[in-house]
């Protein structure tokens, strides 16, 4: 049997049955201005030998720099067993298995992923993942608008402390559905969303408030007060969070009196390597009452007639193949392979292991900040507590400092000047558990030398606060 099951005869028979002359005729109603005439930007095919060489050359251009950059994707240790097991034939598919009778192993793994995520976020239910943290937030916004039936406004409060890429992605996905994302400014001293700054929205119809915690600056938000405020206004609370941080911080399900309504985020820190921006995976959890509004696949556990445990996709009436245009999302698939890795990663680390990772990240970032701010030209920008990432302010042009650091094969942090020009020369830095004291000393040493060479007299030395 050919891989493509439709022979020319099959196609002809089908066209004859519906009275169409050729396949092009089926697309007649689409104006030619909207049709792609071809994929001119795609080059001609290459032989295996050529593509191997090209890919090796590309790979060699990655100098494997020493990474102090986070900003949404984090350089964590991944035990070798994670991908060894993930790439076994039994697991090695990017696709979600539909067939319960043929896919019990994968379905059980996905069920355990959901259990782990629900536990980590302290929410009732989890789906089996979405594409990435940014699109998960966009889906959460759409879900909140559907789920908050008391609200008619389709307005979402979106603090500017939420990852700028997430905000852009959410805007792109929701703007044509009449949903308005309203910016909420942050406090310049704390780098957080101050609950008082929401006061002027009181009495207005708001569908949901987004809270990213830790926020894009690494700062811990006042999640309890913000959640309480939103619920008093009749708004839902969407948490966007880093799963590693949840091993230490209060999980979204426990924010305020009733907890966040939806928790989502980027799953990359759980066993997915940094790889030119992806593929990563998004996660989403919610309260039981909202589960029928949740997008994505959900695996349920059951017992068969002989009392044996079994797993199967469930609540599929939310999904596109059943609900068509009224499905909860037009994305009804997941990132199965990456979720497989994440599940094995979490299983290997265990709750205690994950908490140790989180503690080590926090400690290393504190050490990094202490060492870098020994230089009088560098200061912490915000005064609120951080998890494993924080903003440093430079009293000299940041670009002049970063260029030579790049040349030393170091990723010194994320330059905030494009996304937050009002912060001036501000750098978002992160040291995960993979950074050693020697790594931090190397960074500090390079930085001090570069700053000295650029400021003839050095910076005026001020005593550090004890």
């Amino acid at each position, binding site marked *: 049997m050919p891989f493509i099951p439709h022979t020319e005869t099959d196609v002809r028979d089908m066209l004859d049955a519906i009275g169409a002359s050729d396949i092009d005729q089926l697309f007649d109603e689409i104006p030619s201005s909207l049709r792609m005439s071809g994929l001119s930007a795609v080059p001609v095919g290459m032989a295996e030998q050529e593509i191997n060489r090209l890919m090796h050359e590309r790979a060699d251009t990655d100098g494997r720099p020493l990474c102090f950059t986070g900003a949404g994707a984090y350089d964590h240790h991944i035990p070798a067993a994670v991908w060894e097991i993930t790439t076994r034939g039994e697991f090695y598919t990017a696709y979600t298995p539909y067939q319960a009778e043929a896919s019990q192993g994968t379905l059980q793994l996905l069920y355990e992923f959901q259990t782990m995520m629900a536990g980590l976020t302290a929410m009732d239910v989890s789906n089996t993942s979405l594409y990435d943290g940014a699109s998960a937030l966009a889906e959460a916004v759409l879900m909140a608008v559907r789920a908050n*039936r*008391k609200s008619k406004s389709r307005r979402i409060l979106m603090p500017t402390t939420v990852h700028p890429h997430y905000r852009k992605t959410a805007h792109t996905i929701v703007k044509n559905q009449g949903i308005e994302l309203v910016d909420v400014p942050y406090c310049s001293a704390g780098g957080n969303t101050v609950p008082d700054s929401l006061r002027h929205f009181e009495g207005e119809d708001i569908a949901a408030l987004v809270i990213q915690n830790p926020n894009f600056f690494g700062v811990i938000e006042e999640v309890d007060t913000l959640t309480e405020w939103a619920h008093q206004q009749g708004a839902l609370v969407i948490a966007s969070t880093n799963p590693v941080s949840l091993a230490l911080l209060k999980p979204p399900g426990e924010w305020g009196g009733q907890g966040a309504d939806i928790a989502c985020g980027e799953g990359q820190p759980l066993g997915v390597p940094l790889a030119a921006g992806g593929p990563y995976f998004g996660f989403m959890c919610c309260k039981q009452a909202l589960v*029928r509004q949740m997008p994505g696949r959900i695996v349920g556990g059951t017992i068969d007639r002989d009392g044996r445990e079994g797993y199967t996709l469930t609540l599929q*009436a939310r999904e596109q193949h*059943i*609900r068509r245009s*009224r499905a909860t999302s037009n994305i009804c698939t997941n990132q199965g392979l990456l979720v497989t890795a994440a599940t094995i990663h979490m299983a290997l680390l265990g709750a205690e292991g994950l908490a140790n990772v989180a503690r080590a990240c926090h400690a290393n970032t504190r050490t990094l900040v202490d060492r870098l701010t020994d230089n009088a030209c560098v200061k912490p920008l915000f005064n609120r507590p951080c998890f494993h990432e924080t903003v440093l302010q430079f009293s000299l042009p940041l670009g002049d400092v970063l260029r030579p650091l790049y040349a030393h094969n170091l990723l010194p942090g994320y330059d905030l000047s494009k996304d937050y020009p009002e912060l001036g020369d501000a750098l978002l830095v992160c040291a995960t558990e993979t950074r050693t004291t020697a790594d931090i000393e190397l960074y500090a040493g390079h930085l001090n030398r570069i700053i000295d060479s650029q400021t003839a007299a050095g910076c005026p030395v001020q005593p550090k606060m004890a």
Partner: protein
Amino acid sequence: MSNVPVDLKYAKTHEWARVNDDGSVTVGISDSAQDQLGDMVFVEVPESGQTVSAGEACAVVESVKAASDVYAPVAGEIVEVNENLADSPETVNTDVYGEGWIFRMTATDKSALDTLMDAEAYESFLASESH
């Protein structure tokens, strides 16, 4: 043969409508509809106070086989919803014209009810659909 009570009005989308003494209209799905859908697992009811236009999808019945929209038979305002269906959606199967009602509404224009089918017309409609 499905049960089609003569005191009710029917929509082509298989809702029944009962005009109550106070002029309000109670709405559910027909016996034929519940029979085709099979065992109900979830009913999403509208919001009380919601205004709906005739033919607007305002509730969802989900069975083990399918999920189906329930449409407002006439334009008006939802005044009461059957909260009991949240815990016992199977009532739609067991008592489709009684405790299995889905919502109660007021009709903006009472004469709009005349556009719905009576039992006889609905029975012929069902017969024509089954061919």
